[in-house]
């Protein structure tokens, strides 16, 4: 098997990339290139403890209160039995094994106690481990679900400006680091109890020797205080470089087709190599810093043992200390630093968890703008009318996209919206579906204010075809009946035929059962569009909204679809954002929008006669109205005033 995947070809490639160009002396370009390979990371350096975050997360613990209490009890039992083991050994030695008191019976009793103790210890161990871990897994699922469910409700403008990758890293990475933290946090209680327990036991066994032995602890604390800030920086740097590397990998993966088209492989490789190398070095440094503590702790442990051996040993020689106590001391010292070490690790984890917690809360705290009223109606039937009453709306305060829009569309009527980009067409359709709430005025569907109807029932009555056809992983069949899972195969086929998709679907490798991959590759844009049309047909809603859906369909299909749509729109209300004149002409009425206002309305014939913007646009013979250059529009507008 070939296990030299990297090096040989790497060195060759490295030479072919940046270095060659470096020789040409274009330093500036190289810097620009480096700057251009955008480093994405979103590490938040949070405080190690933030009460606000912790309180919020305690609510996630709520359902598991009983489990949590049982776990804490298990941890305490485990820790206390752990703590008792050296004591039992001590009793065994001093009570049954020292010269003079040797007794097999006492030994048997002591050993029996030992067995009892470890039995309890093991059971407690099992429970503390599994209960806590399972609770942490459940909380992870709960938190992820809470975020995910919330994202289903937050306003679309938030979703528009947030990249999916970032949300995903919150749904996965951040949730995981909280889970990791939770899983170990209850152990931390045990560690803490163990430390206190050891100190108490040592001091009560022999105060003097105990104090002397524990004198090494301040030394450790001092070393830690010096070490911590340096190490922390190094750890953060390491994590940061990791997220940079992963971000770069993700982007290259998404754009891999462009990369290959442009033969950018060599350069991208070099840029990536720099990041990976940086990642390597920062991790090596972090490791060095982490490892430096190992001999430190060991030396201090050795020192403490030496103290016990010399001081304790002398005391035993002087008969001021029982030998069993010295042995117990040695056992305690041998393991004393374990809980300290794990607490330190816990501290790191807590820091990470706080940062993650903050990011999770950021998502959970995104306000939900559009929400069902408690008494919202679930309408079974509507009449298909649409009305806008003095609607004003915008995405950014003080920048209205729609200004006092009023219109009424009768059931069964088809209206075409035309106008340049940014004139507000898409916003009108979005409001109809209550993707957003209006600033002012009212949107009525079927005579009801959309805010009085449940969003689910609104979704049943208003079907939409979006500009970008989005297909989900699944069969063609599942994609077409996406929102109506119980649609039969016949219904699906009927819909596919209605939009003229049936033939090409049958030509796919598995017909309707063909799996569509990511982004529906292997289907042309037009074919993807057709499938999303069929989806809307299956929806069989009273109102059909077509949002620029015809833009990517070629004339062959468009004609066919128009025939299908004409049939489909029979008895339905249609609102079409149209590009092509052919589509516009077939509408019952046309609304011409400009700057958020309806400036003209009427039939094709009426508008042509009106000699306004529509007439001008029409005469310019542009294929699509939103392609009319802004320059032309402004000069027209200036000319008009």
């Amino acid at each position, binding site marked *: 098997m070939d296990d030299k995947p990297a090096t040989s070809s790497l060195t060759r490639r490295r030479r072919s990339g940046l270095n060659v160009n470096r020789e040409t002396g274009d330093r500036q*370009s190289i810097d620009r290139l480096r700057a*251009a*390979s*955008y480093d994405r990371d979103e590490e938040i350096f949070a405080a190690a403890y933030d009460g606000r975050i912790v309180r919020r997360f305690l609510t996630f613990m709520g359902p598991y209160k009983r489990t949590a209490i049982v776990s804490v009890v298990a941890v305490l039992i485990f820790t206390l039995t752990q703590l008792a083991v050296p004591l039992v050994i001590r009793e065994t*030695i001093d009570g049954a*094994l020292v010269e003079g008191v*040797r007794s097999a019976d006492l*030994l048997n009793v002591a050993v029996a106690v030992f067995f009892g103790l470890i039995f309890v210890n093991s059971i407690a*161990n099992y429970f503390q*481990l599994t209960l806590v871990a399972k609770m942490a*897994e459940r909380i992870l*699922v709960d938190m*992820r679900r809470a975020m995910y469910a919330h994202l*289903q409700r937050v306003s679309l403008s938030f979703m528009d400006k947030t990249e*999916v990758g970032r949300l*995903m890293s919150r749904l*996965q990475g951040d949730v995981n680091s909280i889970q990791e933290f939770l899983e170990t946090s209850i152990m931390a209680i045990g560690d803490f109890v163990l430390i206190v327990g050891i100190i108490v036991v040592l001091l009560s066994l022999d105060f003097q020797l105990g104090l002397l032995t524990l004198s090494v602890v301040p030394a450790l604390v001092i070393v830690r205080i010096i070490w911590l800030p340096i190490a922390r920086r190094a750890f953060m740097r390491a994590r940061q470089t990791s997220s940079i590397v992963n971000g770069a*990998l993700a*982007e*290259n*993966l998404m754009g*891999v*087709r*462009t990369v*290959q088209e*442009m*033969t950018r*492989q060599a350069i991208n490789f070099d840029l*990536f190599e720099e990041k990976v190398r940086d990642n*390597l070095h920062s*991790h090596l440094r972090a490791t060095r810093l982490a*490892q430096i503590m*190992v001999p430190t702790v*060991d030396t201090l442990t*050795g*020192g403490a*043992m030496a103290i016990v*051996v010399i001081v304790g*040993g002398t005391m*035993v*020689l002087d008969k001021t200390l029982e030998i069993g106590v*010295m042995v117990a001391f040695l056992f305690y010292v*041998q393991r004393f630093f*374990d809980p300290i070490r794990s607490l330190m690790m816990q501290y790191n984890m807590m820091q990470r968890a706080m940062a993650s917690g903050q990011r999770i809360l950021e998502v959970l705290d995104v306000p939900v703008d559009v929400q069902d009223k408690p008494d919202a109606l679930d309408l079974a039937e509507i009449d298909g009318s649409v009305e806008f009453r003095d609607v004003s709306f915008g995405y950014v305060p003080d920048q209205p996209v729609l200004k006092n829009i009023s219109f009424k569309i009768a059931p069964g009527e088809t209206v075409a919206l035309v106008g340049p*980009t940014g004139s507000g067409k898409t916003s009108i359709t979005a409001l109809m*579906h209550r993707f957003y709430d209006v600033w002012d005025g009212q949107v009525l569907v079927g005579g009801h204010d959309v805010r009085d109807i449940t969003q*689910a029932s609104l979704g049943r009555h208003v079907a939409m075809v979006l500009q970008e056809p989005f297909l989900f*992983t699944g069969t063609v069949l599942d994609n077409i009946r*996406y*929102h109506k899972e119980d649609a039969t195969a016949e219904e699906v086929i009927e819909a596919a035929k209605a939009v003229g998709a049936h033939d090409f679907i049958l030509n796919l*490798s598995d017909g309707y059962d063909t799996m569509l*991959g990511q982004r529906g590759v*292997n289907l042309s844009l037009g074919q993807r569009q*057709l499938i999303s049309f069929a989806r809307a047909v299956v929806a069989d809603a009273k109102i059909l909204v077509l949002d620029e859906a015809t*833009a990517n369909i*070629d004339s062959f*299909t468009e*004609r066919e679809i128009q025939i299908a749509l004409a049939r489909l729109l029979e008895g339905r209300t249609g609102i079409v954002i149209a590009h092509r004149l052919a589509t516009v002409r077939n509408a019952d009425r046309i609304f011409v929008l400009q700057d958020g206002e309806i400036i003209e309305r009427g039939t094709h014939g009426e508008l042509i006669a009106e000699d306004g913007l529509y007439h001008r646009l029409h005469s310019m013979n*542009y*294929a699509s109205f939103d392609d009319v250059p802004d320059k032309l529009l402004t000069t027209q507008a200036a000319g008009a005033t």
Partner: protein
Amino acid sequence: MNESSAKRLPPRPTLKSGLKSGMDYQVPTLEGDHKRGAQALSRVARMALRYRWRFALALLAVVAAGVFQLLIPWYLGNAVDNATGLLEGGVAGADEAQTALLIAAGLIVGAAVLRGSFTMLHNYLGESIGLHIAYELRLAYFEKLQRLSFSYHDKIHSGDLLTRGMLDIEGIRRFVEFGILRLVLLAVLVGVGAYMYMGSDPVLGLLSLSFVPFAFWRATVFRLRMRALWRELQEALSILTRVMEENLGGIRVVRAFGARDFEMKKFDAGSRVALDISMERVGVRYTNTSVITFSYFLAMGFVLWVGGLRIIEGTLTVGELTQFLAFMTILQMPIRQTGMVINGIARASVAGARLFDVLDMEAAIDDKPGALPLKVTDGVLRFGDVSFKYEGFRGQATISNIGFEVRPGRTLGIVGPPGSGKSTIVHLIPRFYDVTSGRITIDGQDIRDVTLDSLRAAVGVVQQDTFLFTSPVSANVAYGEPFADQDRIERATDASQLHSYIAALPEGYDTLVGERGVSLSGGQRQRLSIARSVLLTPSVMVFDDSTAAIDAATERRIREALKELTKDRATIIVSHRLSSLMHADEILFLDKGHIVERGTHQELLAKNGRYRALYDLQIGGDKGDPGAAGRVLEPAE
């Protein structure tokens, strides 16, 4: 027809099987899976061995750390005996005992310091080897992904590839330190410990290690179970990731259809599967840990008992018993860690198998051995009887028997209904896919015989979909030629009618675009894509429906601007808008992968066939007879 096709549909899949059937990779058999896992581990181990000195040193350090650690209980026991005044030879004087205590203390400190230093050394070296391996794998993986052809990326979901590149490499990285070295340490502690302590008292020695075979047996069973669980978990998480990713990416569709409940059900189903596996994993892992720990304590109890009896008999000293107990205390930590180590090994073997799957994948399209760079003399592109069928595609060939020639300075137009194979022709030219039969040549050289880099440098394809990288506009335009100067960039954006838009942006050419930057409209993206290709001045220019979102007037201006730039190049224009390609020197009308009509615009109009029908539909819509559409859609035959 209707009924028969309805019958072909299988019963509606359940939610879970529906999710499962979306798996991108096959779930291998358990046996084959174990083999693959073992192969992956040995491969990682061999990679580690290439860091010869570091690895050797790490092994030495592990052994040394183990031995020094084992010495500590020994000295402790001696010290205890010294303190009780019982030296091996008999009762010693107090002064001698005092000196012996000092010596023991010194030895303990020495052993502790050395143990700590060697532990640091092997931890660091192990981690360092792991990090270097991760470095190599990251680069190799990155390179492989860049080389794997379109057909691969079509099949495998990018989210899945990303998980492999992030989590799986991480799993492998930890293998050297947490897998190999920890196991060696455990072996040293048990092996050397057995030698040292068995020598002093075979029965107690045996007793103190009696739990080891049991732990070993448990660990083996546990490892197999863990591996299976890891694999299942990884797959469940992949599915969940995809469900979430698609939901968030397609949130508008989800909202438009009010499909929230359906999507939540899908999520819950995926989540449930992952949770169940996680729960089982927790159960298996910690049952194992607890049982092993219990067996360890049991052994310790027997040591205490038997040791105690011997002390009472007078054949053992308290110090010696302390030695055994302290020795066992040392074993406690590594034994507790076996769960972690095994978990790590299981994870690494699954992760390794997944990663090597990709690394071993041969790029379907690659340079032939000894391929030479393409020598462009004139820049004549020829399709000779080309047919193509997507791999595993059951239906008819996507394109069949396509033949044409484009000479420099000439333009070929390709038009046809969706799915007629227009884009496929485009994808074959830069060898995104290889022809199934026939050949494509540039200046007489079969494109499969020349290097990919040289071929793709000579062919510029402007795609329908434009991917924007999160970087300044200028870098996006100059993506294929990052060292182009500002002049060249502006000439390209000028030609594609994008310059004035960019210049008007707040930060001009430095404005960040892409996922995190300013978003561009469909038309702007296409113009950027045109600029990208124009900047490269390739010998063959291919426009794949790349002006669909650009209005006719702007397109006309772009065409004017490009005229000068493409006057000595072969140009192919694929479009469904006739005005984009009417001026071409030859036009192919494609349907179902066949050329059904060809000729110049005038010739085709005169033919009064499907091209003519389309023309009437698009240009002369008003005047054209109503039957025109029908003729386009349904060929006369």
